[in-house]
């Protein structure tokens, strides 16, 4: 419990920044919707090649002149900072003790490594949940405010919002796993941006090239807003892959972290 509180305290500032930035990002973009909702806009978008539209996560069944279509596009973008934040925590929480050389303090205390891992993970998940909550509020608020008079199918929006926690879990657990197998993470920020943006590009390429192989490895495809907002349900043919990866990453983190040698300086 003491580690949990301590870790949460360390993340305070980060929680504040992310829970301001991501909702603001969403609200900013969604506020343009009333201007986009005209038929003229659809005509403009129809000019673009299909691959181009696909790259930005637009589904032909869901035109941007429809509020859900616009949310789908915008949400696809705020998934990137969500992924970056979650991977950042994943790469950071365990490796920081070694990088900042505080492992000799924490790991020599009378507490097992499993408990350290669990406490740190819970603290990070709490932070992500707080940010997640602010994103939900901003999404509902923004959609309600800027829907341009259209009726919104709230059910599908809630399904979309419910994916956040798994989306975040994917990145935090993969980040954590990588941090326990490599010797050292030189720069947490760059690797988390790499993972967050890299997998986004993979997903976009997959859609553009209509290739399933790409979709298999990236949670951006597993939890694609363009699918959920049309179908109103998870894309189960892909989502289970995320669940498997999360489980394996957590198990792997446990396995390697509890066997890791913390070398002296």
């Amino acid at each position, binding site marked *: 419990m*003491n580690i949990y509180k301590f870790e949460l305290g360390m993340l305070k500032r980060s929680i504040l920044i992310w829970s301001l930035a991501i909702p603001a990002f969403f609200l900013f973009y969604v506020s343009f919707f009333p201007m986009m909702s005209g038929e003229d806009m659809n005509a403009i978008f129809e000019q673009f090649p299909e691959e181009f539209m696909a790259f930005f996560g637009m589904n032909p069944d869901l035109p941007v002149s429809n509020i859900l279509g616009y949310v789908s596009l915008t949400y696809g973008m705020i998934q990137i900072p969500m992924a970056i934040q979650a991977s950042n925590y994943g790469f950071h929480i365990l490796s920081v003790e070694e990088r900042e050389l505080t492992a*000799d303090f924490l790991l020599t205390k009378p507490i097992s490594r499993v408990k350290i891992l669990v406490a740190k993970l819970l603290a990070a998940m709490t932070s992500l949940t707080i940010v997640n909550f602010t994103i939900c509020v901003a999404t509902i608020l923004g959609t309600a405010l800027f829907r341009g008079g259209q009726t919104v199918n709230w059910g599908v929006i809630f399904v979309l919002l419910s994916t956040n926690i798994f989306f975040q879990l994917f990145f935090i657990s993969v980040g954590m796993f990588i941090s326990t197998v490599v010797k050292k993470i030189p720069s947490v920020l760059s690797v988390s941006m790499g993972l967050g943006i890299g997998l986004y590009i993979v997903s976009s390429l997959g859609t553009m090239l209509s290739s399933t192989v790409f979709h298999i490895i990236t949670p951006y495809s597993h939890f694609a807003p363009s699918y959920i907002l049309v179908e109103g349900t998870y894309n189960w043919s892909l989502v289970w892959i995320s669940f498997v990866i999360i489980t394996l990453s957590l198990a792997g983190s446990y396995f390697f972290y509890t066997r890791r040698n913390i070398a002296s300086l």
Partner: protein
Amino acid sequence: MNVIEFNNLTKYYGDVKGCKNINFKVKQGEIFGFIGPNGAGKSTTIRTMLSLIYPTSGSVTIFGKDAIEFGPEVRSEIGYLPSEIFYYDKMKVEDLLKYSASFYDRDCTERMYELAEIMELDLTRKIQDLSLGNKKKVGIVQGLLHSPKLIILDEPTSGLDPLMQQKFFQLIKEENSMGATVLFSSHILSEVQQLCDRVAIIKDGEIISIQDIKAMKEDTYKKFTFNGENLNDGKFKIEGVSNLSQTNSQVTFFFKGDVNEIIKIAAQLKLKDILVEEPTLEEIFMHYYE
């Protein structure tokens, strides 16, 4: 009763040897020195005791329990002071110490303030603003605040001024007299000489000798230095003399045997000064590292 027992402890990092077949026992209430040059394997050995490092083979038992298997339980009675001190920079000293105390199932508050006062530590400052020596003091307080039964010191004195060093040694002696066992690792032999009862010497990852400091010093050489004129005539080349170095104005050597022999020779000389010293452990141990 033995507080620490190493049983053929071996650690390889890939092909690189950390330590090999470490075998020694530290008795309860002892101040045990652990001596070796940098890179000899001292830290590797110590880190396995704290399960920071997992042994390749062999084991170490602390308070009769395996240090890896019963890690958390064993560590609740260990106070550890690492050689290089790093803490969460943005914290205040007091908060860090309280965080440290929160890991132990006893109230450490009183002892914490007491130690901070002894070490003249300003609790209100941020860790990042502290000098190396002050960080070291934080380390000492956090290592001792839970009144551990086993104190492990890994080159603890770097960064402390001589006055603080004496206070620190005093503190360790007090803890020891109250029943704590101490493992003191160092490459500075005079420190160990000042504090320890027995000492293990490690070289290239292996223990090469375990010595009783008092017995060893009684049993060994005296160091003679003569100053005067025309001294480089080899008069002191007698049995029992070693490490003889002579110039016209000065002769130094170690001698083990009947000192009257030396006095007889010295009586024939024209001297300005005589110095007879206990050799330092450094000098005694030198041949282990040659």
